[in-house]
């Protein structure tokens, strides 16, 4: 079936590149980044791995940082869309948020106390139970439409935007806030180090010397809006969700399938449902984590399906923000379509002859109106979203 385009009328994000979308885009195009060892926590691991933390951000005491990041981005997105509480109260509004740690019943302080103290404090667990990322946004604005928190590891953010677009098309809601949120903490930091896919230096997506990812944290939300409401309030679209596809490798818990079959299936679905000709794709915002495996499989598939199409990874600016990654990268993709240029793939200097292609190495203008963002995840999920240039 062919999908009708779904308008994006607002966007907001917070990440190490900037506490809002404007600042983040400025960092991307000025080629600046500053990953450093964690400031908000410590580790007794002998190596200090650089991370991309968000600074100058205050978290309410009763919320998880993850949910606070999502809420912060949601406020920016709603402001950007010009939707105030009064107008929102007259609409059926859905919320769809991707995350990885936002619903994990996991807290180190509680765990330590449980083993060593006869009456451990329940505060950390109670905070988790109050902080489901989608529910927090729905509660804050008293939304009563569909509400879903998606936990598909690193493709969650892309999946959230894809699902919310389906909600709008099917009439399940008038407006949907869709995106992702994930905080950086000790547990994820130690977990990714244990998998030996973390780079000791700033990450180098697609470079021959890439050693792995750097973790980051982010909140990123988009406002998707029905044509009915958009017509009623004469609101122009910043971008359009044209297509979405997802497919599972059904291969391994952590390793991507070497032949990229799942990613190819996801791309094929996204092209088919949006009726998009692959030749029309102006650029690809790749997953590009900087791990040897991911970048190999991804460039191999891109060389086959989208030969010659410029691509980049923005993870060199934000770190890998896990459940938020797909959402923040969709936002960067839409913002680049508005600007008609993409930033350099920071961290890349030496091509890897084993890869299917090289990313853009400088800020690059383009003339097309359609772009694609892709996410690959633990569990074998591959998700692809196709976005079109907006009206403003």
């Amino acid at each position, binding site marked *: *079936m062919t999908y009708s385009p779904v308008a994006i009328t607002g966007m907001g994000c917070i990440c190490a590149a900037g506490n809002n979308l404007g600042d983040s885009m400025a960092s991307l195009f000025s080629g600046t980044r500053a990953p450093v060892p964690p400031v908000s926590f410590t*580790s*007794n*691991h*002998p190596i200090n791995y650089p991370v991309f933390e968000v600074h100058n951000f205050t978290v309410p005491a009763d919320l998880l940082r993850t949910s606070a990041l999502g809420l912060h981005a949601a406020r920016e997105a709603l402001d950007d869309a010009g939707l105030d509480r009064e107008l929102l109260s007259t609409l059926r509004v859905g919320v769809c948020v991707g995350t*990885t740690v936002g*619903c*994990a*019943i*996991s807290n*180190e302080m509680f*765990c330590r106390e*449980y*083993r*060593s103290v006869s009456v*451990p404090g*329940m505060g950390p*667990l109670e905070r988790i*139970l109050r902080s*489901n990322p*989608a*529910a927090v946004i*729905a*509660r804050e604005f*008293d*939304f*009563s*439409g*569909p*509400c*879903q*928190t*998606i*936990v*598909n*590891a690193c493709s969650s953010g892309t999946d959230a935007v894809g*699902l919310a677009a*389906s*909600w709008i098309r*099917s009439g*399940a809601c008038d407006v949907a806030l869709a995106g992702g949120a994930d905080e950086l903490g000790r*547990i994820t930091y*130690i*977990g990714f*180090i*244990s*998998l*030996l896919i973390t780079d000791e230096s700033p990450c180098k997506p697609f470079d021959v010397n890439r050693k792995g990812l750097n973790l980051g944290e982010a909140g990123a939300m988009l406002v998707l809006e029905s044509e009915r409401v958009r017509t009623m309030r004469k609101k122009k679209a910043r971008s359009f969700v044209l297509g979405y596809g*997802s*497919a*599972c*490798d*059904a291969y391994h*818990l*952590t390793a991507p399938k070497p032949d990229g079959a*799942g990613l190819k299936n996801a791309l094929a*679905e996204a092209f088919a449902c949006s009726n998009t000709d692959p030749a029309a794709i102006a650029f690809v915002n790749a997953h590009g984590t900087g791990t040897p495996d991911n970048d190999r499989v991804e460039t191999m598939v891109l060389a086959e399906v989208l030969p010659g199409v410029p691509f980049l990874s923005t993870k060199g600016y934000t770190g890998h923000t896990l459940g938020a990654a797909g959402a923040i990268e969709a936002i960067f993709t839409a913002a680049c379509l508005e600007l008609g240029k993409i930033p350099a793939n920071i961290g890349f200097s030496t091509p890897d002859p084993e890869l299917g292609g090289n990313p853009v190495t400088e800020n690059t203008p383009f003339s097309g109106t359609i772009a694609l963002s892709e996410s690959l995840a*633990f*569990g*074998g999920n591959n998700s692809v979203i196709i976005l079109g240039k907006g009206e403003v």
Partner: protein
Amino acid sequence: MQIAIQGVGVVGGFGTGVAEMRKALLSGSSNRSIIQLSNCGDPLEIPAFRTDTSRLTEFVPLKALRRIDNFSKLGLLGAYLALEDAGVLAEGKQERLGVVIASGYGASGITFSFLDSFINDGDICASPTYFANSVHNSAAAYISIMLGATGPSSTVSQFHQSVPSALQTARLWLSEGRVDRVLFGAVEELSELIGYAWCRQRGTTDSREISPLLTGTESAVPGEGAAFLLLSRKEESQKGYCFLDQVITGRHLKPGFIASPQDLLVLGADGRREKGADYAVLAENATVACFTSLYGSMPISPAFDLAIAALMLKEGKTFASPFSGICDFPATVAAGGKALESQRVSCLSLSDDDGFGLVTLSKG
């Protein structure tokens, strides 16, 4: 679009598979046991509905399960049982199958183990296997790997709202034609961590009877398990259980909103006192049933209600609500073995933040 329920796979305190669930529905009894916790070395016991995943080796060789944790084992067993029940296990790779999993707490047991691994031996000794298994979509991943399911896969986690929310996604995928079938499953694991949090919040009373329709009484007992449904579009369905007419989720449900009075209303009330009064208001004057005392209280319990409702519609008659406690609000508790008048059953579940899920199944 109407969606058909083609197969049901359940594992819970009542046993494994539809036959054992049916037996428990007829007898009104389930297996409550005790779980042992160790907080700071002090033993603690709480009553609970535990599950046994030993039948999984009928479907998967033991070797292939070596690093799969209890949460994913529950999911795998539910998945295989649903496919077996629908008679499609022999088909081989399921390339047009979508997988949608709901879980309130995810793989909390292995998450706890991962934390232990570095708390005990230092950050450098954190176990990557535990970490990889602790991601919420691990059960979905193992299911896709074992079944060769290369369609879309998604896992939803929002406590007591997980089931109706995830079910909407399953429905959407079928109506958009993304897949031909969806394996919809709900999985919950009663890990030590969840068990401890439970008894801190609700105490350790072990002899109480679950009285879900006594609104002012705390009588909940925690449970764990998996409930899976194999779904397809109605027009492509073989003779299955029944059809999924609608799934409504949202917040602030009003009493008048619930379907016609001749429909049976299955309540997700499970003895947690804070939700009792809300169910009472919404179910006033309805014909109700409640089965939570067969499998216990857990965020995904609405999925068990769906499985039971599907079985009632398949057999065309009601099962008696398996508790002797009375209903202290004006509603009629349906007797067992009676014909389902309207051939329609609605399942209501309430969650935090005034959220609700209302799922309607029918025979026609």
